[in-house]
Each structure stands twice: as structure tokens, then as C-alpha cells.
């Protein structure tokens, strides 16, 4: 009996807390459907509802183009990070070569560098390459990630060494070993890196703001941030929330579908990274 009451208490406590985390999102979505004058009300439900906020917002900014850009940029960058970082991670974990520990320490070091330190020189570099307003500027600086390298290294160190030897005798090259033996064995690591990197790139706003000025090349967070902060929203809260909603929706849907993987990824990333 006592146990039941305790459980009931914990359950209601959790429900209240969970509401604190979900309610703002309900409110946000509600705000996009309410009449503008009622947006600031506590209740997510308005006296009437319409899709006007979306219509107005989409009439002003090409958000679907930004969606396309975001998908392209995040996808290519993620694939590249998986390939290139796992290559480095494999070498660091399983190959003996001169300078290996130096490289490892350098990678650790780069993890704590504040990004603002390199922001301006990086931009100057993009300009020199003629990459401003191109996908290259959005993708190339994100083709390898120190975090991914370290995670892959950690994961690969657990693979039995005999497998590498067997594969070498079977006739695989080092790249072959990586992609045909280690990759299939490292699905959790691949999913972890993939999800974390994809999420990071999808939500990145600062770098695109610096290297992209063309409306047609913008990614979602950049376009939405500029829309909400700049003059285009004309202080219409509903349309700002609509832009924020459309930006968040894809990642929330992916999250809800792949929830188990997301959470497992995050758990492993923290413990190993």
C-alpha cells in the first residue's frame, strides 16, 4: 500500500516535470495557429485557428528551399564525417605509425578550443577559396569532427585484433578492413556519430550566417533566425513561431521515430567521448 502511494506520488511528480519540458512546444505550435492578438496567452488554444501564420511566413521566405539546403548540407557532411573520421579513428586505434600519439593529443586539444578563435581566419579562408555562398563553405569545414574521431577510436579499440589479422590474410586492404569489417561491427558508433553530427549541423546557425548571404543558399536555422530577428517578420509573433516550428519539426519527427537510437547514442557519446 505504502509502495503504491509512493509510486503514485512519483508518477504525478514526473508528469508535472515532463509537462514543463513539453508544454513550451505545445504553446509554440498553438501560437502558430492562434490569432496574433492571442499569441501571448497561456493557453495554447485560441478562439479560432488558421494556417495564416504559415502562409504569411512562407510568402516571405523560401523556407522549403532552406529545408532542401539543410538536408543536403547535413547529409553530405554527416556521410563525410562518418567516412573520414572513422578512417582517422581506425588509424589511431589500430595502426602503429610514427606520430600517432601526437595526433591523438592534438585532436584532444582541438576539442577544447573556443570556435570564436578561428572564426574570422576561417571566413577569410573561405573567401580565398571562393566558397562564399556555396555548399562547399557549409560542408567542407564540417567534413571531419574531432569528437567523431575520438569516439570511433574508442570503439575500434574494442574490436579483437585477430579480426584485423584474419582480414589482412583474407586479402583486405586497410580501407577494406575499415569499411567491410569494422563498419558492420560498429553500427552503434556509426549511429551515434551520425545522429549527433547530423543534429549539430542541422541546428548550426552562426557559421552559415557568416559564409552565406544568398537567400537561396541559406539553411533553416539561419533563415529562421534572420527572419525572427530581422525586419521581415514585422514583429508578427505567430509567423516567427511558425518558422521556428517548421524548423524544429523535421528534427522532432526524426527524433520521435529514432528515439531509442537517439537516446542510446547520447548515452554512449557522453560516456566514451
Amino acid at each position: 500500500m505504502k509502495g503504491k502511494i509512493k509510486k503514485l506520488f512519483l508518477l504525478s511528480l514526473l508528469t508535472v516535470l515532463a509537462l514543463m519540458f513539453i508544454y513550451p512546444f505545445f504553446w509554440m505550435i498553438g501560437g502558430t495557429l492562434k490569432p496574433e492578438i492571442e499569441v501571448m496567452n497561456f493557453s495554447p488554444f485560441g478562439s479560432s485557428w488558421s494556417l495564416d501564420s504559415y502562409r504569411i511566413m512562407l510568402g516571405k521566405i523560401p523556407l522549403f528551399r532552406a529545408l532542401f539546403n539543410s538536408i543536403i548540407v547535413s547529409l553530405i557532411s554527416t556521410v563525410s564525417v562518418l567516412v573520414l573520421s572513422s578512417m582517422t579513428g581506425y588509424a589511431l586505434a589500430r595502426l602503429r605509425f610514427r606520430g600517432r600519439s601526437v595526433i591523438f593529443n592534438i585532436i584532444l586539444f582541438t576539442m577544447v578550443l573556443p570556435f570564436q578563435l578561428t572564426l574570422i581566419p576561417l571566413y577569410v579562408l573561405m573567401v580565398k577559396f571562393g566558397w562564399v555562398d556555396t555548399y562547399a563553405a557549409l560542408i567542407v569545414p564540417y567534413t571531419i569532427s574531432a569528437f567523431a574521431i575520438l569516439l570511433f577510436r574508442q570503439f575500434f579499440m574494442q574490436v579483437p585484433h585477430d579480426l584485423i589479422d584474419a582480414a589482412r590474410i583474407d586479402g583486405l586492404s586497410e580501407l577494406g578492413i575499415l569499411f567491410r569489417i569494422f563498419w558492420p561491427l560498429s553500427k552503434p558508433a556509426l549511429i551515434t556519430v551520425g545522429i549527433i553530427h547530423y543534429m549539430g549541423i542541422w541546428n548550426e546557425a552562426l557559421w552559415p550566417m557568416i559564409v552565406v548571404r544568398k537567400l537561396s543558399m541559406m539553411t533553416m536555422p539561419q533563415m529562421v533566425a534572420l527572419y525572427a530577428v530581422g525586419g521581415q517578420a514585422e514583429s508578427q509573433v505567430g509567423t516567427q513561431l511558425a518558422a521556428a516550428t517548421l524548423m524544429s519539426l523535421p528534427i522532432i519527427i526524426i527524433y520521435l521515430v529514432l528515439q531509442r537510437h537517439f537516446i542510446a547514442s547520447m548515452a554512449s557519446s557522453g560516456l566514451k567521448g
Partner: protein
Amino acid sequence: MASVQLKNLKKAYTKDNLVIDDFSLDISDGEFLVLVGPSGCGKSTILRMIAGLEDITAGEIFIDGNLVNDQPPKNRDIAMVFQNYALYPHMNVYNNLAFGLKLRKFPKQEIAKRVKLAANILEIGRYLQKKPKELSGGERQRVALGRAIVRDPKVFLFDEPLSNLDAKLRVQMRAEIKKLHNELQTTMIYVTHDQVEAMTMGDRIVILKDGIAQQIGSPMEVYQVPSNRFVGSFIGSPAMNFIEGDLTGNVFEGPGVKVELTDIEDQSNQKRSITLGIRPEDISIGQGQITAQVIVTEPLGSETIIHIKLADNPLVIKYPQLVFYKPGEKIIINFNTARIMLFDTHTGKRLK
């Protein structure tokens, strides 16, 4: 099928730490050679150098008469069986067997034919569609063998392939590998730390210690005429007994023992430090002059192992019948003087 020659092999991981020092060996075509030694003696390193998995610091390796120092493993036409089986966990048994052939661009039918053949030899046909993790240890070991067989290589390399199996299975697989060798007549190089495996399987045995070959010979040779105290102690179970003492003329005197030896050529009556070695089965009980105290008796059914104490020196006797002595009981023992071996106490070299 091929011969393997190793010439003056050296291996050093750091500059002044030689793991293998000047190792040379000719392995003839179709031979079953066993490299045996305690862990860390360098036996696996030699095997891995032959496989091409380790760089060679100095020296040369020939397989079938060709210098392979700079050849990657896949070009050496060898196959290897690993201690942990090293099966690809994400492939089923069939693909594990076929993988090496696929990489070598064998036609599909040829691959299927070879896999079927190997599966028949090893009786693993039922498991072909299973993943390695669904198999028992022994079954996995068969698959690992099969993977080597399908390749039909010039040389088979075994790196302690049985050490992860339980005792019964180990005995069984030992016989199977030997049988396989008889069927295939391929050169096989087998690494183990277990002297029983070495003795039962090898045509020739190389006993290694600290990167140096202590003795190379047939199982009988190394058992009967070990070249030094290490080989004597390493080969044979239970291990050889040693008593340190002095030799004057043909009389050995150690703690609690005085033995008159035959076949001693040295007639000078000079006294020198000698270690006497005698195998447990060469000590008899019941008659003689040496008195010892029993520590413990281990009846094994057909024979009995008796641990005794001879003036604080522990010795082991293997008695070919079932007997029982109480701990502390005094017994009379005798050494079979013809089988006594003498070793130089300082160098360990065998004198007789």
C-alpha cells in the same frame, strides 16, 4: 604446398629490445612444425612474421623459395587460424568461409564447391547459414579451420588455436587437426604454449625461450635428449625433477641424496657444481637408500602422482599403479641411474 625458410630473423619493437634474436629454420614441404614455449617467448611473433602481420627487423623469409619479406599477407598464399577464431561476427558461416575467395575474385561456383568440400571435411555443413555467435566454441574453431582450408594455401599457420577450448574438446580437435594434416599434406606451422600439444602433433618441435631457439627436433628427441635444463623442464608432464649438488668423480651428492652414476667419462676427482635431472617416471619406490617424506598423493586411476620432500627439496614421482601414502609417511625411493641427466648449474647445458 611449400617449404618455408627463415634466415637470421630478428625482431625488435624498440631499438634495444630484441624479441627475436637471429632465428633460422628450414621447414620442409608438408611438415607439421610446432613452435612451443612459455608466453612471451616470441613464438607468435615468428608466426606473425611468416604471415606478414609483423614487420621483419632483419633477416629473410622464403616461402616456396620466394623471398616474401615485402609481400603483404594476402600475397603470401598462407592461411591462418587464430586463438580467438577471428570469425567475422556480421557474416554467416558460409560467407566467413567464402570471404577470402570472394576477395580473390574466384568464380561463384568454384567458391561454392570449395566451401562445400571444406564443410564436409569438418562436418559443419549444418551451420552454414548461422552467424558465429550462434555456434559453440568447438564449432567456431571448425569454421576457423574451414576458412583456412577453402583457400588451399601453401602454408597453414596456427596461433594457439585450441587454447580457448575445454580440455576434452581440445584433445578431440588435436586429433582432427593431425588428421587434417595427414589428408592435406600441407606444410603447417603451429604455435602453442602447451607442450602436450607440441609433443602429440608435431613432426618437429622448436622450443623457444626469450626469442632464441633452445632446441629443434622430433618429439622423442627433445624428450629424451633435451639440450638444456630449460627444455628438460618444459617438455614432459609432470615436469622433470631437479636437484642441485656437487659431482665428484662419478658420485653426485645433493641434499639428502648420494648417487653413483654410470657412464661418466670424467675421472678426475675434482668437485664441481651440477644439477641432477630425473623425470618423475624414473624414480621408483620401495627399494634403495634414499628416504623421503610424502607431502601429498594424487591417485589418477591408472597411475599415481606422489609429491615428496627430499631434505626440503620437493620432488614428483609418477608411479604406474594405484597406490596411496599418507601425508608425512616416510618412503624409500630409488633413481633409475641410467636415465639420470646432468646439467651445468650455471649454463644449464646438458652434460649427460
